[in-house]
């Protein structure tokens, strides 16, 4: 018995090591001078000439501007998608109307569609409207995030006990009031969860950002970082420093909101 426990700890340790090693390696590389990144010293863990040069160079590159773009686009999308999804999910979870199941199936269906199919037409439409390279990109992000948010929220709304509404109804409150005064406060944790998942979803999106905002001043962080690669040479020092900078916001979000994220991820996957 004791041996299995030991084995388990070894496996978990190994698992954590594998998860962490890439970050760790990128992190230490970002402090090495370019000369030590190449050649015989490439595998040295601690550089004897640690430097912040690569981070300084980032100020010249577009990384900070792109982080700002990502932040604006992701926050904004999160706000409006969460509002729309809450209304829609409540309706699906609680109210009776014709075509409900079909609707939920359609919502789920769109989330399974390959994005590649809508990118072309959306790109053409954006070109026509002169919206290429702008924050209008938040609109089509609804395509990716709305179905997921609705799905998460439907699961959460269903969990709220029906009795609360029924007692409200007996008191003669309107459905709108019931939703605003009874359901919403109770559903806040769920809404928050869906907001976090939406935010991460938009923050990580690549294809739409790549095609709709090709100009470097409108790049999001995910796209900007992919453009750091050159044709013949790659300045790994700068690339690793940029990677560290871009990863930090994600790490903060994960560490602070881990509970909500896990609940969001597992809703739907687990039948209770």
């Amino acid at each position, binding site marked *: 018995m004791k041996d299995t426990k030991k084995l388990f700890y070894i496996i978990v340790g190994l698992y954590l090591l594998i998860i962490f090693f890439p970050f760790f390696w990128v992190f230490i590389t970002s402090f090495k001078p370019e000369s030590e990144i190449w050649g015989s010293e490439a595998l040295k863990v601690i550089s004897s000439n640690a430097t912040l040069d690569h981070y300084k160079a980032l100020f010249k590159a577009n990384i900070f501007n792109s982080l700002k773009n990502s932040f604006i686009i992701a926050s904004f999308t999160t706000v*409006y998608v969460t509002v729309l999804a809450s*209304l829609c999910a409540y309706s699906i979870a609680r109210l009776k109307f014709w075509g409900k199941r079909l609707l939920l199936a359609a919502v789920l269906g769109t989330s399974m569609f390959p994005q590649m199919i809508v990118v072309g037409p959306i790109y053409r439409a954006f070109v026509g*409207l002169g919206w290429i390279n702008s924050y*209008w990109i*938040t609109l089509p992000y609804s395509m990716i995030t709305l179905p997921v948010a609705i799905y998460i929220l439907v699961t959460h709304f269903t969990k709220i006990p029906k009795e609360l509404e029924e007692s409200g109804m007996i008191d003669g409150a309107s459905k709108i009031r019931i939703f605003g005064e009874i359901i919403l406060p109770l559903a806040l944790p769920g809404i928050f969860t869906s907001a976090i998942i939406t935010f991460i979803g938009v923050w990580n999106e690549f294809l739409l950002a790549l095609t709709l905002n*090709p100009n470097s001043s409108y790049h999001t962080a995910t796209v900007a970082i992919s453009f750091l690669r050159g*044709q*013949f040479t790659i300045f790994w020092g700068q690339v690793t420093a940029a990677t560290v900078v871009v990863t930090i916001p994600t790490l903060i979000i994960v560490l602070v909101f881990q509970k909500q994220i896990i609940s969001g991820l597992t809703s739907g996957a687990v039948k209770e």
Partner: protein
Amino acid sequence: MRKYLPLLLIFILVISLAAGCTVKEEPVVEEPVVEEPVVEEPVPVEKTIVKFAVQADSTGALDAIISDFNEQSELYEVEPVIMTNDSGVMHDQLMNSLSGKSGEYDIISMDVVWAGEFAAAGYLEPIDSLIKDAGWKVTDFNAGSMSSGKYKGKNYVLPYFPDLGFLYFRTDIVSEEDAAVLVGGDYSWSDLLTMAEKYKGENGTLYGHVFQSKQYEGLTCNINEFSANWADIQGGLETMKAFADSDATPQDILVYTEGETHNAFLNGESVFARNWPYMNGMAASGDYNIDVANVGYASLPDGGTVGGWILGINNNSQNVEGSHEFLKFISGPEGQKINATVGGYLPGFNALLEDQEVLNANALLTDPGFQVALTKTIARPVVANYSEVSDIIQVKTHEFLSGNGDIESATQIISELFE
């Protein structure tokens, strides 16, 4: 502030939607456009900004050209938009912008092989009138660069910097007699192979000859040279395979790009090498094992592929006048001279080939072997679907070279591309 307008509009829209007041409203997308207020008058600036899409230039020549132009121009200010160094990605980005009829770039720098596609698509402005107004002739410019930008009888480009493939060899190994033959340019591929096999191993060399045959654009350039500009495709493929299979070339020659080539040659591992002019700059820098005094230059047997970058004007540019002015400057004698003296590039304006300052700055230009190479250049096909054509050439050639395909089908498929 204007960039935040979309967010504001979407926000208002969502709130009004969410409030349930606008249930009957028609599709969302169209609506905000109508509301978009007219932008305030742009603050009048003294000089009109001309945007120039170009890759970073580490030699400092680009900065010098732009600051010289901006200093002397009273009407225009050129602003470089530095594009990614990955040419493939840059091509896609330009494609994306140009097909969207965007005027975000006024002047565009292009790899020579993109011009056919861009011109056919109607993205570029023909420049024949510009050449005429400036009192120049097409023949005043590098022939290879100009022909890569000529589509359906019209000229669309001027040179930024021309490039060509040629042969490097070790003068400390190759006998004077053989060197004379090479420099004269009157030799065949089989002569080269014989020499490569003969000299391999001397002075610590490991290989006789290195060239590019990984499956990428460089392979198209190399097969272009082996096949004498597609004149003899089957013969070219056979010759190339004879080189690849020979003991005189590295075992992994099929993954060689320019990088592997210059590593091998500059570290003194190879007697011959096919590469672009940039390798000479590296050899002269003294950072490598090789002594530049021991490097000789010659044309390739049937001519070297033209490469380099060219400049064109976006058809949707709002600053045609300014673009013309800058294009005349950068491709004309002033700009090309800076490019040649500061950057060490080959001049695209032919008269500079006799300019003493230019000749002093670039030793290659006075070398007799290189001068022969300059006269023997061959272009890659100028077609609208170049990337597709080049892709097929690469795949078929590489398949044959690696022993995964037969010569008949490779020859046939490549020949069909040229019909």
